[in-house]
């Protein structure tokens, strides 16, 4: 303070500043807001344009998912899992099934493992395309969105050929997958992936050379590695901070241990890293799918244990055991042994965990889903506090919160 007296009065830097006393303002953003996808409401306390406080409120898409699962058989939970992270239904389907299989201690056939891996990777690409396209759109790059959607539509066509649905797939059954790959599908997928790669690169090149985009993405929504861990982040948002944590590598499931792929990492933990990491992950997924095609051997796609799998139709019509097996599964549901378990897979947004409790009847006693989106949404406040309001938009986009999984 002593120094200040030395400066002549008229030169003191704060003398000329006309300080306006400001009051903070409360702003409601959402739940149906043009610049944010997903139904979440932000109660924002603003000082001028700076965010003083932010309080995300959820519950606008609560659909009673966990409770609904208790009223249906284990297999019938599948359609509910489609609609958690609805952009990557296959990852949810297979993740849930793996958890159930862990509880029942079933080992699924090799080919089914490959189909699960490649299906999940295809949908990971879809999810990342959507996240990237939507981010670009909400920052004003509308044409980028078209490229991403076109690529996603191409992949959805292939997924529809495999599962019969574009986005709510309900594919896979306890003990494997109920259908093998369609004829000629592998070549089609390879061609599609080529085209998707072109579109993906187009998307990336349109954005990473765009000054406006860079200015809004770089250095905004920053979170440090330590904070990210403390908030319970997982998936791309955690890896963007530089932490090498990918469940596909650290606890390989299905056939990921046989795949040769890298885990892309970021350094700054800002929006740009999260965005670019998704582009990189798409490339890895692309190569995983191709590796699956290479390594796959013909074989069964479903276990032959009639307590879990429907017996083949000829058996049902001609043997009494077949009829009984069919009847019991259809009428009572698959009986999962008593117990509880937690199993997790790497979904496009991070760790998708399932805590299941079975009381030995045909229905789940309790299904709980650890959705990757909840910790991410919880971290948003920390990431944008003190920043300006427009920074909230890319931050919210790059964490890619999906309403369906956050609100169970």
């Amino acid at each position, binding site marked *: 303070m002593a120094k200040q007296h030395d400066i002549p009065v008229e030169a003191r830097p704060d003398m000329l500043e006309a300080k306006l006393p400001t009051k903070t303002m409360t702003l409601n953003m959402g739940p149906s807001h043009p610049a944010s996808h997903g139904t979440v409401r932000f109660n924002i306390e603003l000082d001028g344009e700076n965010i003083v406080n932010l309080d995300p409120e959820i519950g606008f898409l609560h659909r009673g998912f966990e409770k609904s699962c208790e009223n249906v058989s284990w297999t019938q939970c599948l359609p509910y899992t489609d609609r958690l992270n*609805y952009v990557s239904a296959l990852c949810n389907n297979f993740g849930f099934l793996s958890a159930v299989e862990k509880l029942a201690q079933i080992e699924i056939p090799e080919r089914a493992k490959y189909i699960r891996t490649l299906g999940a990777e295809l949908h990971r690409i879809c999810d990342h395309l959507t996240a990237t396209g939507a981010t670009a759109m909400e920052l004003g790059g509308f044409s980028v969105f078209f490229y991403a959607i076109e690529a996603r539509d191409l992949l959805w066509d292939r997924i529809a050929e495999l599962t019969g649905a*574009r*986005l709510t797939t309900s594919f896979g059954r306890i003990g494997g997958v109920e259908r093998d790959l369609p004829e000629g599908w592998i070549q089609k997928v390879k061609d599609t992936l080529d085209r998707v790669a072109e579109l993906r690169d187009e998307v990336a090149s349109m954005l990473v050379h765009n000054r406006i985009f860079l200015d809004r993405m770089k250095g905004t929504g920053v979170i440090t590695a330590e904070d990210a861990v403390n908030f319970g982040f997982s998936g791309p948002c955690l890896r963007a901070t530089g932490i090498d944590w990918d469940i596909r590598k650290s606890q390989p499931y299905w056939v990921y241990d046989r795949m040769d792929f890298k885990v892309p990492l970021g350094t700054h933990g800002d929006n740009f890293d999260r965005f670019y990491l998704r582009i990189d992950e798409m490339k890895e997924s692309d190569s995983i799918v191709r590796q699956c095609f290479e390594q796959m051997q013909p074989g069964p796609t479903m276990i032959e244990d009639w307590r879990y799998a429907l017996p083949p139709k000829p058996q049902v019509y001609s043997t009494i055991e077949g009829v009984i097996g069919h009847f019991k599964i259809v009428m009572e549901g698959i009986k999962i042994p008593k117990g509880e378990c937690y199993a997790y897979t790497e979904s496009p947004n991070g760790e998708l965990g399932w805590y299941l409790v079975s009381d030995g009847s045909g229905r789940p006693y309790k299904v709980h889903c650890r959705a990757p989106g909840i910790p991410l949404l919880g971290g948003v406040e920390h990431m944008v506090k003190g920043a300006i309001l427009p920074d909230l938009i890319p931050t919210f986009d790059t964490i890619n919160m999906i309403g369906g999984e956050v609100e169970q």
Partner: protein
Amino acid sequence: MSSNFGMVTTRREEAEGFLQRMVSRGLGWARKYSLFQYPFVTACCGMEYMAISGARYDVARFGAEFPRFSPRQADLLMVVGTINQKQAPILKRVYDQMAEPKWVIAFGVCASSGGFYDNYAVLQGIDRIIPVDVYIPGCPPRPEQVLDGLILLQEKISAQTHKLIDHAPPEMTVDGKRDLLAGGMK
């Protein structure tokens, strides 16, 4: 403005009626091809909404080009996805804020009937709170279905009576407002 005397109409009234029908038809034609939509997107159906606004299915071909994110600028409310009890008052408010004439499309089974979420949380169809013109089934509907629904709505619009100046009284009652406020938005 039909005659008070049953069958008997004067020439003047006939001429007026003719003019009105022409105006109505013209307005209907203009309105059906310039639908400004407000996508009220909540859930999974929104992914298919993205697909129809993308280049391949291109809803712009049907004149429903650009989403308007202000209800005051929109005349077609597309309710895309699940509406639960917490969301319902907001949907009602958005609908009330739209200027006449306005139409509503229920996109997907959740919006139409609650879908397979037959439980405590989900509104069993948006027609419990706002009127609906076209229901599009499907969970989610395929883009072709959505476009078909849009064309159905356009047919409906062109068959409706349109007036240059509509003197219809505003619909919302004080009671309605009170319900809305009680519904959670503070």
